[in-house]
Structures are given as C-alpha cells and as structure tokens.
C-alpha cells in the first residue's frame, strides 16, 4: 500500500539512517553507564572485541547492560508508535496509551496474571492483552456517538478509566501480602532491570511484526487523517484498518506493560517532536517513531541509572516527569 516515490524513499532512508545513528550513540551511552565504573574506552574495546580478557566486564556489558538497553529501545519504540497510532486514529494530539488508560488496563490484567502465578510469557502477556482490549472497548464505547472525536470527551473518559484502573490496582496491591508485593510495586513504576536476552528476544518477536504491520498501514493512516469520506473514496477499508491498528497497538502496549510495567507519556513526547521536525507524513513518521522512541527511552533509562547516587529510579518516573509537563503545555496550546 506504500506508494514508492523515489523522493519519499530517499527521504525515508535519510531520516531513518540519521535516527539510527542517534539511537546507536545513545545505546552506547547506555552501555557505558552503570553502578560499576567502566571507562568509555574499555566499553568500546569490549564491544568492538579488541578486549576480551576481563570476563567480569564482558558479562556485565554483554549480559547485563546490553539486554537492558535493547529492552528500553523496544519499549520506547512500541510506546511511541502506540502514541502515534492513537493520535492518528482518534485525531487527537493528546491521545497516548498511558493517558487513555490502555496501559492501566493492561497493568490490571498483568497484576491479575502475576497473582495467579503465571509466567511472564505467555500467561501474563495474555492477561495484560485482555486487560488492554477491555479498556480500549470501554473507552471507545464511552466516547462513541456524536462526540467521538471531541478532544475533551475522549480525554475525560481516559482520565476516568485511568482513575478506575488505579483504584483496581490499589485494591489488588492491598490484597497482596507476600513478597510478590515488592515485585509488583517495582514493576508498576516501570522497571527495566530484569531483562535477560531470552526475554528481550521474546519481546522483540512480539513487537517487530506489529512494527511492520503499522508501517504497512501508514499510508491508510495518512488518508484517514484527511477525513473518513476522503479515505473511503481513496479505497481505504476504514473499519478493517482502524480495528487492525487498534488491536496491534493494544497488543504492543500490553506486551511492554507486562514486561516492564507502567512507563507513561512516552507516546506523547516523541511523536510530537518528530512531527514537528519531519512533518505529518506517517510513512516517514512510523519508522522515525520506532527509532526515535527507542532513543528517547534508552536515554530516560540512562538518566534513571545515573541520577541517583545509590540504586536507580524507575524509568517510568523519569518519563512521567518529562512527559506530564509537556502534556500540559500541549493541552494549553491546543485550547487556544
């Protein structure tokens, strides 16, 4: 469905290449920071493979930091893309999985899964997915009718769904008394520290097909933004595209939530920034969001690790601290 114009292809290639380089630089930054002091030079030497003598350093970089950095990149990419899709489908610049309550819904599902003793994959991921689909349906039902596209109605229903989800999460936490409680609380705040290569591989296997699917549907997304009649006359099967995109996005979001908890506002920051720089064409924005979102998340995780003297801040705290003020700014600007 992507019309391959040479200009577009060239632009796509250039932007992707540029963002890929930025991502690589930030990932390297992420690899070279941690509680143990390893100089940037020796990190570089270890990565390139010149230095293999120190097995401790080797396993710290390859088996502890690398999975974490890749995990952050995947999570950031998925959440940014989720934001982009929701903003396009709902035609609302403030839509985002976390703000809409989709993340909260999958968190409920995931906690239920954890409490029932399921393993992270496929058990917890599936309960998280059903939670996110349930909230998605709830939001769509609530904001349906005449006012479906009105910003305030959608945001308000999102806020309410979020409040409800928060209450259910609180209820579940208050009912938990054993050591799982700590795990749930750390996980809820957005914890990226427990990824090993196997888990990262599974998450990548879940997310990458969704990335391609969304990219494949990026032109219909462009057309949808022009209006439903317009899209229909251009031959877009509106219902099918919308449903596919919504389900794929919810799937991505619930997968990330079941792995690293609630990381909020990521889907707000990057799509807006990239739209500002590269314009509104989704054929460019989708890959840009994947790479840029990954970069943003890796950077937030980097901050989460270096800011405190002892231990680390959950990454979700950092993203919310950056994202929430931006949200208020966007809301203020769009209401003018």
């Amino acid at each position: 469905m992507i019309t391959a114009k040479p200009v577009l292809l060239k632009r796509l290639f250039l932007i992707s290449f540029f963002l890929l380089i930025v991502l690589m630089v930030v990932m390297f930054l992420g690899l070279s920071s941690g509680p143990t002091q390893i100089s940037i030079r020796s990190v570089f030497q270890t990565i390139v493979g010149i230095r293999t003598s120190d097995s401790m350093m080797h396993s710290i970089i390859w088996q502890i930091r690398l999975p974490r950095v890749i995990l952050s990149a995947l999570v950031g990419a998925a959440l940014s893309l989720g934001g982009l899709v929701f903003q396009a489908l709902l035609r609302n610049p403030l839509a985002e999985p976390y703000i809409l309550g989709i993340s909260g819904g999958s968190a409920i599902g995931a906690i239920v899964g954890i409490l029932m003793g399921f393993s992270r994959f496929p058990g917890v991921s599936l309960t998280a997915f059903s939670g996110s689909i349930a909230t998605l349906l709830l939001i769509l039902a609530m904001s349906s009718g005449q006012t479906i596209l009105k910003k305030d109605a959608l945001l308000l229903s999102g806020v309410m769904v979020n409040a409800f989800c928060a209450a259910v999460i609180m209820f579940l936490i208050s009912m938990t008394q054993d050591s799982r409680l700590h795990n749930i609380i750390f996980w809820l705040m957005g914890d990226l520290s427990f990824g090993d290569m196997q888990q990262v591989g599974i998450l990548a296997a879940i997310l990458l097909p969704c990335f391609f699917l969304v990219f494949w549907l990026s032109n219909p997304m462009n057309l949808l933004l022009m209006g439903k009649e317009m899209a229909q006359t251009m031959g877009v099967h509106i219902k099918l595209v919308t449903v596919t995109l919504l389900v794929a996005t919810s799937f991505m979001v619930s997968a990330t939530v079941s792995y690293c908890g609630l990381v909020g506002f990521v889907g707000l920051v990057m799509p807006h920034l990239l739209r500002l720089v590269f314009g509104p064409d989704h054929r460019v924005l989708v890959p840009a969001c994947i790479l840029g979102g990954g970069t943003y998340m890796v950077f937030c995780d980097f901050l989460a690790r270096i800011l405190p003297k002892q231990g680390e801040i959950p990454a979700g705290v950092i993203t919310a601290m950056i994202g929430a003020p931006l949200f208020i700014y966007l809301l203020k600007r769009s209401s003018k």
Partner: protein
Amino acid sequence: MFQRSKTITIKNMVTFRYITIVLMITVLPLILSVTASANKTLTDQLGRHVTVSDEPQRVVSLAPSITEIVFALDQGHRLKGVTTYSDFPPQAVKLPKVGSYVQLDLEKIVALKPDLCIAIKDGNPIAVARRLESLKIPVYAVNPGNLESVMQTVQEVGELLNVQEKADKLVQSMNLRIQKVKSLVAKTTYRPRVFFQIGVSPIVSVGTHTFSNELIVLAGGKNVAQGPIAYPRYSIEQVLALSPEVIIITSMARVAIFKQVKAEWNRWPNMPAVRNHQIFIEDSNLFDRPTPRLVDGLELMVKLIHPELFEGTK
C-alpha cells in the same frame, strides 16, 4: 664407541629417574591440590543442585539474615557484598552493598566477582537468581520457616563455607538455650494472651506461620492473632475485643513513632495489657530475622511474657 653409548644410556636412565622423581614431587601435589580445591555439589533448600568451590572465598549475601549467619560462623571476612539493611553485626554495615534484598542490583553483584551467592527464597526475586546462574555464579538458596530450619540453615551455610564444626557448636548452643526456655516455661500452665504488633498504620500482627508466633508459643504465650494469614491487619476495635494481656510492639528504627503507638494503647485502660503495664517496644530484628539471634529474641520474650518466672532469680 660402544662404551660411550652405554654411558649415555646410563646417563639417560639417571636423568629419566630424576625426571620421574621431579615429576612425582611437583605433579602429585598439583593433582592433589586440584582435587582438593575441586568443587562440591550440594542440594539447597529448594532442592536444586548447586556446585560451589570447596572453600568459597568471595561470598555475596543476598539478605540481612544470611549476613548475620555468616558472621555468626566467624566467616565475615569472606563476605564481599551484602544487602542494604544488613545492619548486624556492625562490621556488616561497612561492606559493599548490592541493593536491598527485594531489589538486588545484578551488576553490582557480578562486579564483586563472587564465587558463591547465598539467597533467601522469601524475598529475593527468582529472576535475579536465575540470571546469576546463567552468568556462572552459583546461587545457594535457603528457605527457613521456623527455628528448626534456621538451625538447619546455619549448618548448611557451615557446610558451604567448610566450617561445619563451628556450625555444629553454634546449633548446639542454640538448642541448649531453647531447651532451657522450654523447661522454664514448663513450670507454669498460665498462657497469657499476647498481641504482637509489627505494623503501626494499619495495625498488623503475626499469624501462625511466622517466626514471631513460634517464639510467642515457645515463650509460653498465646498469640491472639493466630491464623492462616501470615500478617493479618487489625482495627483498634478488634484488638480491644481480643483483650491482650501483653502487647509487644516491634520497632525498626523510629522509636518515637512507636512511643506514640504505646501512648495510643494507653487510652484504653480496660485492656489488661494497659492495666498491668505490659506494653513493650523491642527490636524487630530479634523476632523476625531467621538468624541465631532468634534465640536472643526467645529469651527476651519469656522475660516479657512470664516475668514471674524470673522473680526468684533476681
């Protein structure tokens, strides 16, 4: 010509003999030392087989209780890392920290190059243990649930560190002290109702399957919060209805808050514990950490619950 070659063969034989002797002297101890420093395979308390070196020298303890046990066996010098709340004995405070026991910092553990990590099932995230093992760091997990299994744990840690004799001695003295308490308590049939408060708001007590409950029962008390829930919550009303004769409040650090709690209970003079001034504030680590110090907690508990048994000795 012939003779020359003969002397050479003799010479050869001599050198050969030398070589064998030298080899015997150098290689044999080498072989022995290799077998001596060989690994041992033990089964931990979760039934997993763990292969560790015979004399682990770089041990990382993943819980405060394990730190205490290692120090109790005089092997503190082998600890290269401990968790944040490892506050006993005082030497443990200075050791490098690897995060709290529920939120371990994997990278810090690996950077200490441990040849053994001792983990506790109740608290340590299983994911960290698995990843340590995938990095070829042996993890021995313990899961003590009562005094008996604490002593078992002490013995297993002794075996791990190759100090079985010390462990046996420690366990013997623990057993002896427990027996003393038992025979002391046997002198009376009176079992006061004890409310053991570990949480302030909400009020939290201890159920049947806790160390504190075991200590209360051994010390001749009746835990009014007995039940299947490990850490049940109470309202003031419920506690009043139970009319405890002894209230033991365990504090972590902020004693001031607990003094306030005590003052709060004093508002209910009809409660036997208030009437008879039987409200105490004690160090929680003596009652809920699975360490040899539980016996100290037990001895303290008897004095609180049955002060009359000590009247003669004063």
